[in-house]
Structures are given as C-alpha cells and as structure tokens.
C-alpha cells in the first residue's frame, strides 16, 4: 500500500473522493502554507487570510466530486482560493469609505522611462519587505494577482494561465507590465 506522503496530489484527491479522509488531511498539510501565503498577499491580514484558506479547503471538502482530473489539483485549489480572495477584496472595496485612486493605475497608464531623466546611480538595495508589500497592494487587480502568482508563489506561466483563465501570451505580457508598474510604484525609493 502506498503511503499518503508519497502520493501525487491527484492520487490523493482521488483517494479522498473514494472516502479516505486522511488523504484530505495530507492535501491540507501540503497546501495550507502556500495558500495562506498567497491569500495573505492579497488581503494583508493574517486572520482574514487563514479564514479564507479554511473556506477554500471546506469547499474542497464539500465539493470533492467537482474535481475532475483534467486539471492539476494545485491549479484547481489556487483558482478557488484566488476567486475567494478577489471576491473578499471586492467586498472590502465596497465597504471602503475613502478612495485609493491616487495609488491605483490604469491598465494603459504605463509610460516608459523618461530617457532625459538621469537614472544613473539609482540604488534599490534598500527595499524592505513592507514597502514591496505596499507596492503590490497598490497594483490594480489583474497585475496584483499575476505578481503574487508568478513572482511570490513562483508558479509556472502554464499554471497561471489555467488559474486565471487567460491565454499564456496574456500571462507573459501582464507579468512584464506588472513588474514595470511595481518598479514605478517603488521609484520613490530611488536615492
């Protein structure tokens, strides 16, 4: 008999669909940190992030038969968590009484570096995690998700394409634009 810890995610979910709850616990242990990390970058609140990841796993628990082995389990669970995180963000936006418009960007707003500006001697070594997190938080939604998935979670373009349901070419171009926007946001740190 194969041990749970040596099984693939897809084998584990199949076992769980067959009624083996220990397979579900193994999946939780594999993904809880990754998902909390992922959702925390969206919400910037540890309690909310944990609650939302719990909801994600509860959805998997209740709707285990909704999973079909046409997609990787990882992309499936990231899709659920991502959708929940985005809907939580939307709820928060509706609740907000003030606007963050001064921090947000439009998709077409990016302008290339002004070539006349003397950029020599720019040092970005002083980036602190907190400043980067603020900058990520200020990114508009499509860029925020993509930055978290690609540059923090280090998922493949293919997986991101499945999770966000967008073509691979769009993923690559958004990754690039998101990085450039992040750079723009952090430009105040230039010495």
């Amino acid at each position, binding site marked *: 008999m194969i041990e749970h810890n040596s099984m693939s995610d897809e084998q584990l979910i199949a076992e769980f669909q067959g009624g083996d709850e220990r397979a579900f616990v193994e999946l*939780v242990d594999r993904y809880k940190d990754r998902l909390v990390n992922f959702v925390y970058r969206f919400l910037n609140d540890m309690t909310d992030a944990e609650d939302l990841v719990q909801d994600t796993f509860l959805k998997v628990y209740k709707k285990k038969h909704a999973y079909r082995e046409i997609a990787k389990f990882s992309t499936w669970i990231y899709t659920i968590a991502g959708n929940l995180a985005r809907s939580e963000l939307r709820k928060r936006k509706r609740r907000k009484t003030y606007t963050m418009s001064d921090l947000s960007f439009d998709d077409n707003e990016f302008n290339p570096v002004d070539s006349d500006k003397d*950029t020599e001697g720019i040092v970005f070594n002083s980036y602190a995690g907190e400043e*980067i997190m603020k900058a990520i938080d200020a990114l508009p939604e499509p860029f925020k998700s993509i930055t978290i998935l690609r540059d923090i979670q280090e998922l493949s373009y293919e997986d991101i394409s499945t999770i966000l349901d967008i073509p691979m070419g769009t993923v690559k171009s958004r990754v690039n634009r998101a990085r*450039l926007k992040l750079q723009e946001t952090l430009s105040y740190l230039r010495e």
Partner: protein
Amino acid sequence: MQNNECSYICEQFTEYQDQTLSMKIRSHVDAHLAICSSCQSRFQELDIILDRLHQLSPIMASPDFTEKLMHKAHQQSTESVWERFYQSPYSRIAGFAVAAGLVAAIGLNIWIEPIGPGSSNSNFTEKKINPTAVYANRPDSIGLGNDSLQLQPGKINSDGSVLKLVSDKK
C-alpha cells in the same frame, strides 16, 4: 524615437530574464542595453525587485490550522445531511407524498369501515344500557355481547388479594 525604443526594450524584460527571447531579439536587447544607461539601470532595478520578491519571508499557517479545519469540516458534514435533505426539492415532494398517503389511507379506511353509529355500513348495534342497573347487578362480572368477564380473586400474590379478569365465553 529613443523613447519608443526604450519602451520596446522594457517590454522584453521578462522574456529576456526567462531567456525565452529569440536570438535575434535578444541580441537587439543586448545591443540597446550596451548603449542606453537608462534601460540598463531599469533592468538592474527590476532584477533587484524580483530578487526581493522571491526573498519575502514566507507566511505560515497557524499550528492548529488543520485541527480547526477538520473540526469545522466534521461539523458542517453532520449539519449538511439534514440541510441537504431540507433544501433539496425532493424533501418537498417527499413531504407532499407522505401527506397525500396519510389522507388517502384515512379516507380509504373511512370508506371501507365508516366509524360511528348511524352509518349505513355500520357493524355496530346500538344498545341502550342503564349504568345504574349494571352497577347494581354487578356480580363482579361484565357482559360484552356473548362474552363475559368475571373478576375473581387471584393467586398471584402471597396474600391472595389480587383480582384477575377471567374471560368466560358463553
């Protein structure tokens, strides 16, 4: 023109870093970077930002995360059996079916064996009994049509005080 060229070069950053650019475009980017200090700085900055992003301290779930989750999951699964039944359209159908069955059974029973005196199919015969007379003639026995029940001292208890009902079919 310089601005457009720089813009084009910046758009290639990710693929340049992933080393997925074609040889032709890659050498074009390299050539531009060699002469454009602005883009060079930009690429260096992006490298540092990416490096910092990868180094962000990982966030871990709390130690009792799994325990809490499994508790919630079990709680929900026991609730959900009833919830699922209650919420399902079949529960209403089942409710209507049970109610209809009961009404039909009661109706059928009344139609076959109507209850109460005076009905045309009644098997009961009305007999007026004077309760005082029955009480006065009571020989510790009760008459029921052709049967009679007699009260006799029982021999169950040691003191012999218990009465028992004895059926005496006539």
